[in-house]
């Protein structure tokens, strides 16, 4: 378990563990994690949607917990970060196959965040019903892929 701190002794950079690798950013400590991931580390799968933590397009996992990275200062990160790029290659696989089987995405912009949320939900609870999914996933989709998302999470829950 890595131990992370905010600003180092010089106060001019922050060390992070991102997708299993040590990364350093010179961004000020209050910079939203979202932009550090996107601009400093080139991890553009995590999207900007609202900047106020409402839509969930920026969802990542920190220490296994879903965090809306647009509203999370980089100095507050206290555990390893996993983004969609990493989750897709690891425990997101059953979720993504269900997503592909049902052809869930339309514009697709919210989908990485949806998949991060769904993967976390399935880790928490294996035996899901429709109501659980609807209660748990509060991310916003503007194209209206919601009904397929529910079906895809149910399908993924059978394969996890």
């Amino acid at each position, binding site marked *: 378990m890595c131990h992370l701190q905010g600003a180092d002794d010089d106060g001019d950079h922050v060390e992070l563990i991102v997708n299993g690798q040590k990364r350093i950013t010179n*961004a*000020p400590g209050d*910079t*939203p994690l979202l*932009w*550090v991931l*996107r*601009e*400093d580390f*080139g*991890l*553009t*799968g*995590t*999207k*900007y*949607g*609202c*900047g*106020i933590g*409402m*839509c969930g*397009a920026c969802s990542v996992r920190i220490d296994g917990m879903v965090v809306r990275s647009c509203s999370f200062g980089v100095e507050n990160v206290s555990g390893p970060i996993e*983004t*969609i*790029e990493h989750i*897709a290659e690891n425990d997101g696989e059953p979720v*993504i196959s269900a*997503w*592909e089987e049902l*052809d*869930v*995405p*339309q*514009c*697709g*912009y*919210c*989908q*990485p965040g949806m*998949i991060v949320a769904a993967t976390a939900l399935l880790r928490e609870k294996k035996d899901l019903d429709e109501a659980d*999914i*609807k*209660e748990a*996933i*509060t*991310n*916003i*989709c*503007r*194209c*209206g*892929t*919601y*009904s*397929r*998302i*529910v079906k895809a999470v149910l399908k993924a829950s059978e394969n996890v």
Partner: protein
Amino acid sequence: MSENRLIKLDRRELLKVGSVGLLGVGLTACSPAEVTREPIHFDSFISILPDNKIEVVVPDVELGQGVFTTLAKIVADELGADWDSVEARIAQGSAEFANPLKGYQATGRSQAVQGFYTPLRTAGAAVRSILIQAAANIWSVASTDCSVQNSYVICNQDGRKLRFSELAEDASSLALPESPDLKPQSEFKLIGHTTKRLDTPAKCRGSAEYTIDVQLPGMLSAAIKHGAWANGEIQIGNEAEILSMPGIAGIVKRPEFIAVVAEKYYQAQKVISTLRVTAPEMATPPVTSSAYRTKLRDDLDASDGRVLDDAPPIAFGVRDLEATYSVPFLAHATMEPMTCVARFDDGAIDIWTGTQGPALAQTEIAKALDIAPDKVSIYRPFAGGGFGRRFFFDYCLQAALIAREFPGRPVKLIWSREEDTANDYYRPAVAARLRSRLTDGGMISAFSAQVSAASILEQNVPGVLKGGPDRTLFGGLNNTPYEFGEARFVWHEQISPVRIGMWRAVSYSQNAFFMESFMDECAHSLGQDPAQFRLEHAQSDPRMRSVIEKVMDMSGWSDGRPLGIAAVKSYGSYVAQVVELSDASERIQAKRVWCAVDCGMAVDPGGVIAQMESGIIYGLTAALYGEITFENGRVDQSNFHDYRMLSLLETPEIETAIVDSGAALGGVGEPGLPPIAPALANAIFAKRGMRLRELPFKLDVN
């Protein structure tokens, strides 16, 4: 066929487009090996790669509506390509990709498949015929003895076969036939069948590239603050201090916006909120949306409306029905806010953005920079939603003007959600009064509709109406499948105090609510079944009748449960929907929605169903929550907390059926939306006896 635009591009030009395009449209990974491979380009749409992959250039932008897949498969089916080896790429801005139904390049009015179905089939068939000819020449057999399958040409006599890629070079020296034989429908393997979307894998893994994801060497980022400053005399109190910060590249000041440009967007965005702008702001019109709404409704009493087609006045009697409805301004709220990358260098500009209107953007950027239109190149990544918003080019123009200040360096302009919400081209607020004369036989024998609305066309292209009425304001009122005997349509012209534009389904988004709510009111007033009442008035339109009958059947309409129905013809397609409300009494919530659609042949049935679901959710959001208000020219809403979206928890179960009428192709991106608001209103009436004539339905239903 001459209008087919099978223009052979200059090879150097194509290679340039190819390499830049790969950077811009990142579905295909941009490895050096892939950039240096030598594809053979047959026409604007089709290239064959050495590894026997087929690349299809799709002329429309992918906004979520699925054209990336649907248009590619139209080509692939005619070509005889192995679907698993087809790669698609979104076309850059170019007149050769003009939609034949429009005459210019734009994605909208649900016309992508309608417009390109025949040109793309023809392109696929033409290339197939020269590949076959090339093989026949090698084998010294007649071309009629050859066929295609899974990207091979096969000799029917002995089963010999050659890959398309092995034939491509020979074939490219043959002339493309102008009128190749098209496949009979019975031989379609992809068209008419559901195929997996080509963009799904990348969109699930975070590797699909949107404009906001474009990364170019030396790129700067810009944050923007809109305003209206008098005389361009903008003073920023802390300008020198900001410009001295490491990482800040500059501040661009224009009368209509200020942009902070920095090495990182997060810095630009942080700094822009600290600007101390001291310039006097231009006086904004002292208009509020509530006063505008009152004016819209009051003007329905005025006698000076413009009558369409000089229709004579209708004599209505005392027992005839009249109802007044209204809808508010709406924002598009695409998930990806307005974003554009621009690079200005040596008198030319490259633009990356998922625009719906590249032709217009190109013209206007050229004008603003005073350069020739052919010096403006537009490359299009995926768009994170469009719904009409990305037809407008305001943000592209801003990016171009900003980039001009930093020659040689690409600049990525990202609007914050707050700027996006407050600076939209809003769906206009509209009020309407509908009247009908009802007969003893239970029919409508005369109908009139007065519409009080500003014209999107006139506001955006002043003078375009030349004093005449804006007929586009009447879609869903004066072109319904219903027959009423007498009919009259009147426009009470308004000047909108805020920018207005096309929003999903445009005038149908409000008119269907008026019309289909009113049909319900007429039916109830006559004591008739609302579904049956619609059937009676659509006697001569079997397509309308069959979607209504289908949705009645699906929903168990005749059981007598309290359900709401609406049926709308728009963009060449017919859609009927039935809504059942949840029993929760504390709020209005649709529990189930049944949807029957006849869009002619469904080129991709799965895609059609997805678009119906999409239109229903988009329309439900508007019906339940959508409302932009303003005071003194300032929009009150700023983000998703006060411009609310339907949530997963509030999503009804949706069941869609496709009715195959064999009719000509219709659109699907928009037609799913118009029926949902009136079907919901009619369900509320059926279940609770309340007639709601104003959107959104935010009333406390207790």
